[in-house]
Each structure stands twice: as structure tokens, then as C-alpha cells.
């Protein structure tokens, strides 16, 4: 038991604890942010390695390297690792690092819970990845874990269910912390409509997380009881319906995809004004657009299941509601472009990634609009067109925004400038290769190549080869990224406090790297 008295020590002079225990018991938002970011990078490389094996197998038609069962395990776990282990923890890490600083607070509002939010994750992923070594291997029914297929899995199934429960607990606690921090820790004068957009988008993301992670928990619980406790939720013989699972899953799943992109909107809305040297165009419309997207995300879920046999009214409602999302998204893209209009632009690496985001995320948005058209979706459903669509929004969308934010803020975090030349190389290598990787998949999908199948008809060979070559190049570019990050942490040109000459925001008023406790005295907000 700890004694309570030592919690009264002087907060101002308290630095990090000594030794490796610092990282286990820390309650500091920067330490925890760093943990999240490092964890996300490891998961990103691990999920990437799985993707490399997938692309290797798909290099040629026929079965070359791995058996189809293992292929299915890889596609399933690749998605779960990238979503729950890569992108989400990366965003939470950025939130941890930046939110308290951006709103002028001393730390996250609930520091101990913050520690737990992170420290559940390594255990959850050990459990999930452990399923590869169990009887029957890892779950292989796709990341959407539809019954009845997923119920036929091996011993890994209950472990996956509990791993998802743990990730959910972690996410909900993290989200509660974000909301409480934003509502309660702002410096005097930092009104809601003065908050940087990254704070706003995370606020709305946290709301979505709290609303839908319990829904996923309920869904996987029903899967668990259907398999082990004789319930009939998803079995027609007992009066249930497998389609019910799809409804519940996508009621979680659609807000989830906005969880994966709203923080990206916030990041890009911070970076573009800096390098265009103009304030963000249409700040309040950005806030309202983000809120509308969040609201709409709750009433569009069934566009993931147009082919499942819904009543016509359902098809129409979900089609039109989905198309509505293009309106607030269009507002955002318009605002980003208007911010750049007549700006004094420079193109450092963060800006390159941000512009890459705007262009390529919009491509993903357009293919999303195509998929939203119910009659057309009957053709596209479960083809590589869908794979191309969501990789454009997630890789060149979410992941690009994370890359952009790392380049943008790493001088602040470490006190060292990254190597600009290497950063530019990383951007161009990534951008060329990622398009070689995913663009041909549009054509493959339109021509009818189904997703999640390790073999394909010979006429798809050439595009698949291109895609695999792009994939390997993209993978190598990210190894290069790890090197750039490592090099920056080790040393480099010292960064100034402001880092970027056009930058606006409280994070640039602190030293680089910032003091261990961010704002022990609340800053003045103009």
C-alpha cells in the first residue's frame, strides 16, 4: 500500500521517476502519450508485416506460400491490429501529448485512469496475437466477425472476444478522460469555440467512442454466448437472425470509421494553416461539419450490408442518409483548400502529408460515394473496390494524418528537428508506392475480384503484381520512417520553441521539449 502523504509533494518540481518503472507507473500525459505512440508504431509495423505476407501470396494467381486458412487469419488480424492497435492508439497518443498543452492545462484530468487505459492494451494484444499459436489458429472470419462463420473458429475465438472487450474498456476509459479533460481542464478564457480543431475533433471522437464501444462489447458478448452458452441470437432456428449481428456490428462500425478519421481532420486543420500562413478558413463551419458527420454516422450503418436482403425502404433510407455525409465532408475539403488559397505556402514534410491527405482522402471519399449508391453497390460489394476505398481513407487518410502530425510535432516532443530531406524522401516514396499499391485495386474490384480470397482468376494477375510491388515499396518506406523517427529522437538540429514560423497555438509557447508538467500556471488566452 502506498502512503498518502507522499502525494502532497511539490508538483512543480516533480520530474520523471528513475528507471524503467517510470513507464509502468507513470501518470504523466506526455509519458503516456509516448507509450501510446510507440505501441501504435510497433502494431503498425506488425500489421504491416501481415499485409506484406498477404501481398506476397497475391503476387501471382494460385497458391504459393501460405494455405488459405492462414491467409484468412492474416486478413482478419491485420485489420484488427491496424484499427485497434495502430490507428486508434496513435490518435489517443497524440491526444494525450497535445490536448492538455493545447487547452493550457497541467495534465489529463484523470491521470491514473489514463495509465490504465494504456496498460490494458499490451495485454489485450498479447491475447489477440496469441491466438495465432492456438488450436485452429487466429480468428479467420474477417475483422467484421460475422456469425455463423466466426463461431466455427478454433480455440482462438474466446480469446479474441475478450481481447476486444479489453480494447473496448481501454478505449472507453481513454475517451472519458479526453472529454473530462476538455470540459474541465481548459485555461481561463479558452472558450469552446477558441479550442484548436484537433481538440474539437477529439471531443467529438471521444463521444463516439463512448457511444459505440459498449455496442461492440455487447455484440461480441452475444457471439460468445451463442457459441458457448446455447443462446440463439444469431440462429434462425431459435428465432434469431445472423443479420442482427451485422446491424449491431455496423451500428458500432460506422461511427468507428469516423473515430478513425475525425482526429485526422483536426490534425490537418492544424497543419494547413501553419504552412499556408493563414488562419483556418471557416473555423466554426468546421466544428459544425464535424458534429454533423458524427450525428450522421449513427444513421447510415446499413450501407455496409446493402446486399443482405433488407426491405427496399431500408435500402433507400440508408443510401440517401449516406450521401448526406458528403455535404459536411465537402465543407471540410472546401475549407482546407480555401485556407491554402492565396496563402504563402511552403512545403515541409508535415504540409506534404497534409496535402497528400486532402487529395487522397478525397479520392477515398469519392469511391465511398460510389459505394453508397445501393444499386451500384450490389456490383461492388465485397470486391477489391471496397478494399481500395477503405485503404484510401484509412492509409492515405488516417495514417497520413498521423505521419503528418509526427513530423509536425516531433520537434516539439523531442526538441530536435527531424531531417527535412529524409522526411521529403519518405513522403514521396510513400505517396508513389501507396498509389501503386491501392489504385489498381479499384480496377480489380470493378472487374469483379472478390476480397478475402488468396487465389484469383488469371486476368487479374497484372494489377495484382503492381499492387504487390507498391505494397512492398510502401512497407519499406515505413521502415525508413522508423529510422527517421529514431534518428530524430537521438539527436539533430535543436528546434526552437515556435518550431514553425507560421504556427499558432499554445503548444508553441512552451519550450521544445516542453517541461514535464505542461502548464502548472494557466496561460493567458487572448
Amino acid at each position, binding site marked *: *500500500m502506498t502512503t498518502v502523504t507522499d*502525494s502532497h509533494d511539490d508538483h512543480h518540481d516533480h520530474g520523471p521517476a528513475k528507471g524503467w518503472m517510470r513507464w509502468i507507473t507513470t501518470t504523466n500525459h506526455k509519458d503516456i502519450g509516448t507509450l501510446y505512440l510507440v505501441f501504435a508504431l510497433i502494431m503498425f509495423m506488425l500489421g504491416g508485416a501481415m499485409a506484406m505476407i498477404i501481398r506476397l501470396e497475391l503476387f501471382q494467381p494460385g497458391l504459393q506460400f501460405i494455405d488459405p486458412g492462414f491467409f484468412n487469419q492474416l486478413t482478419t488480424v491485420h485489420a484488427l491490429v491496424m484499427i485497434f492497435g495502430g490507428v486508434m492508439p496513435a490518435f489517443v497518443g497524440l491526444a494525450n501529448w497535445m490536448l492538455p498543452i493545447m487547452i493550457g492545462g497541467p495534465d489529463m484530468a484523470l491521470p491514473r485512469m489514463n495509465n490504465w487505459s494504456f496498460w490494458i492494451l499490451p495485454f489485450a494484444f498479447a491475447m489477440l496475437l496469441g491466438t495465432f499459436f492456438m488450436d485452429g489458429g487466429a480468428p479467420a472470419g474477417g475483422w467484421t466477425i460475422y456469425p455463423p462463420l466466426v463461431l466455427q473458429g478454433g480455440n482462438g475465438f474466446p480469446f479474441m472476444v475478450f481481447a476486444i472487450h479489453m480494447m473496448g474498456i481501454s478505449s472507453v476509459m481513454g475517451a472519458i478522460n479526453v472529454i473530462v479533460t476538455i470540459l474541465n481542464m481548459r485555461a481561463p478564457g479558452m472558450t469552446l469555440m477558441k479550442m484548436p480543431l484537433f481538440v474539437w475533433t477529439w471531443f467529438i471522437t471521444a463521444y463516439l467512442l463512448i457511444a459505440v464501444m459498449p455496442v461492440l462489447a455487447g455484440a461480441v458478448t452475444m457471439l460468445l454466448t451463442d457459441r458457448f452458452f446455447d443462446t440463439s441470437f444469431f*440462429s*434462425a432456428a431459435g428465432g434469431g437472425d445472423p443479420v442482427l449481428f451485422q446491424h449491431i456490428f455496423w451500428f458500432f462500425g460506422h461511427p468507428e470509421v469516423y473515430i478513425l478519421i475525425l482526429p485526422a481532420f483536426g490534425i490537418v486543420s492544424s497543419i494547413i494553416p501553419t504552412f499556408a500562413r493563414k488562419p483556418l478558413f471557416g473555423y466554426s463551419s468546421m466544428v459544425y461539419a464535424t458534429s454533423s458527420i458524427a450525428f450522421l454516422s449513427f444513421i447510415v450503418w446499413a450501407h455496409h450490408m446493402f446486399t443482405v436482403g433488407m426491405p427496399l425502404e431500408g435500402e433507400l433510407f440508408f443510401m440517401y442518409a449516406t450521401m448526406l455525409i458528403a455535404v459536411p465532408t465537402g465543407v471540410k475539403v472546401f475549407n482546407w483548400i480555401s485556407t491554402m488559397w492565396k496563402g504563402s505556402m511552403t512545403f515541409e514534410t508535415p504540409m506534404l502529408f497534409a496535402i497528400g491527405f486532402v487529395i487522397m482522402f478525397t479520392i477515398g471519399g469519392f469511391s465511398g460515394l460510389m459505394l453508397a449508391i445501393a444499386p451500384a453497390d450490389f456490383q461492388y460489394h465485397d470486391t477489391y473496390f471496397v478494399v481500395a476505398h477503405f485503404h484510401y481513407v484509412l492509409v492515405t487518410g488516417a495514417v497520413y494524418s498521423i505521419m503528418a502530425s509526427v513530423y509536425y510535432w516531433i520537434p516539439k516532443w523531442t526538441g530536435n528537428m527531424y531531417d527535412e530531406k529524409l522526411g521529403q524522401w519518405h513522403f514521396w516514396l510513400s505517396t508513389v508506392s501507396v498509389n501503386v499499391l491501392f489504385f489498381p485495386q479499384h480496377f480489380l474490384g470493378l472487374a469483379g475480384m472478390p476480397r478475402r480470397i488468396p487465389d484469383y482468376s488469371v486476368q487479374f494477375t497484372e494489377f495484382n503484381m503492381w499492387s504487390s510491388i507498391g505494397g512492398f515499396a510502401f512497407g519499406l518506406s515505413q521502415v525508413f520512417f522508423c529510422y527517421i523517427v529514431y534518428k530524430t529522437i537521438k539527436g539533430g538540429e535543436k528546434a526552437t520553441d515556435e518550431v514553425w514560423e507560421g504556427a499558432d497555438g499554445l503548444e508553441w509557447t512552451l519550450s521544445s521539449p516542453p517541461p514535464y508538467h505542461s502548464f502548472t500556471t494557466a496561460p493567458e488566452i487572448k
Partner: protein
Amino acid sequence: MSSENAYFVPHDAKWPIVGSVGMTLLLGGFASQLNGSTSASNVMIVGFLILVYMMFGWFGEVIDESESGTYKSNEDASFRIGMIWFIFSEVMFFAVFFGALYYIRSFSVPWLGGEGSGVLTNEFLWNKFEAAWPTNGPGDVGGEYEKMGAWGLPAINTLLLLTSGATCTWAHWGLIANKRKQLIIGLALTVTLGFVFVGLQMLEYSHGYNELNLTMGTGVYGSTFYLLTGFHGFHVTVGAIMLTVMLVRSIKGHFTPEDHFGFEAAAWYWHFVDVVWLGLFVFVYWL
């Protein structure tokens, strides 16, 4: 901001990692148990005990800090906002099961009975199945069963929980008016009513399993019935334990009329499980 008003940022949190280990052992053990391992229940027990140890340690630390005046209005606000959003997450968790119930009752069962686009399903797969509620499905899964009536134990349980909500508020009034005795009696009544509720619920389950042949395997009726009431019962148990802690703290002389968020959080939670029960009573038992 002077240092006296500085937000309290604790250091060296060792309970979270203990909790992670406990949670992993509990859930990993449970998963192995489900896979047929015979020794996994020991792992579960160890994990559970570690979690209990963690809660004693963690909450104990927080209570000590609270009693020693570490928390000011800012920290208090954080706890309040955090608790509200935690309860919202719980609302969403129950919403899934209620949503599943509505979907099954208004869509999947009627479709199986041939309504709307279900004509052919009914004709060729489940011929002669007539949609009705409750149902164990066209496959008669789980065999003959009887419905759980609303106006026996469930009605009594409704009364118990509603009364406990009132006694809880009465205890709160006592606390605000600095009437310690009223607080303790009110809380003791609330806790008692809560545990009696859980006891009656167990009685009802045993009635269902032994006399009505109503089990979790009784088609979709049994599934929704036991998962909805089961998760609710679990939440009532948690709420009652929380209130028991508050009772012990009240007897020890914790809380002041102005400052008693621990009590309020438990009371909020209690009212939340109360409201969920009303939904259950109407949609699971009655209609």
C-alpha cells in the same frame, strides 16, 4: 493559479498494472475454461482476487486522498463529468441488448413467420411456423417451456427497486441536512433492498430453469431474457456493493453535507440500474 489551487496530479500509479494483470488472468482463464481446459478455473480465481485486491488498493487510495482534503472543486468536477460519461457508456451497453430484443420481436420473428420479404423463407425453410412472442424459434430450440410471468416476483422486484431508489434519496437528504442517522438508516435500507432484489432474481432463475424449462438455450426468448436480466442483475450487484462501501464510509464518519461525491456517484449508478429495470419490466416481462 496558485499552487494551492493546482490540479492534483497523482504520481506513481501502480494499481493500473496490477489491474491489467488481474483482468488478463481472469479473462484468459475464462477463455481457456470455455475451450475445455480443466485447470483454468484456478487462473480465473487468481485473476479475480488480483482484481479485487486492485480495487481495494486503488479505491482505498482515492478515499484516503478525498478524506485528507486533496481534492478541490476542480477534481470534483472531473469525477462528476467522468461518472456521467461512464453511465452513458453503460446505457449504450444495455441499448445493444434492448435493440436486439426489438429487432427480434419486430423483424426477425415476423419474417420467419412469413411477413414481408420472409414469405419464401417461411414457405420453404420453416413451413407452418407462426410468428408469436415469446418464441423459441421455428426449430423449437430448447423444447417446451413456459413464459416468465410479470406479476409475480418481477412485480415485487419492481416495487423493491423503486422503494430502494426512494430510500437512497432519503439517505441523501439526511446527508445534506447533516443527519447522520438518517443517512445510515437510509443507506442500510437501500443496500438491503438491493441484495433482496438480487436474491429474488436468483429465485426467479431457479424457478425458470427447474419448473418452466426456461433456460438460456430456450431459443431467442431465453437468450434475450437471461442476457438482459442477467446483465442487469450483475449491475444491481455492483451498485449494491458500491452502496455498501458508502454505508461503511458513512458509519466511519466520511462525507460532509457539502462534499460527498462518492455517495452521489453510487446513487447516480443506483438510479441508472433502477431505470434499466423499468425498461426490462415493461419490455421483457410485461408486454
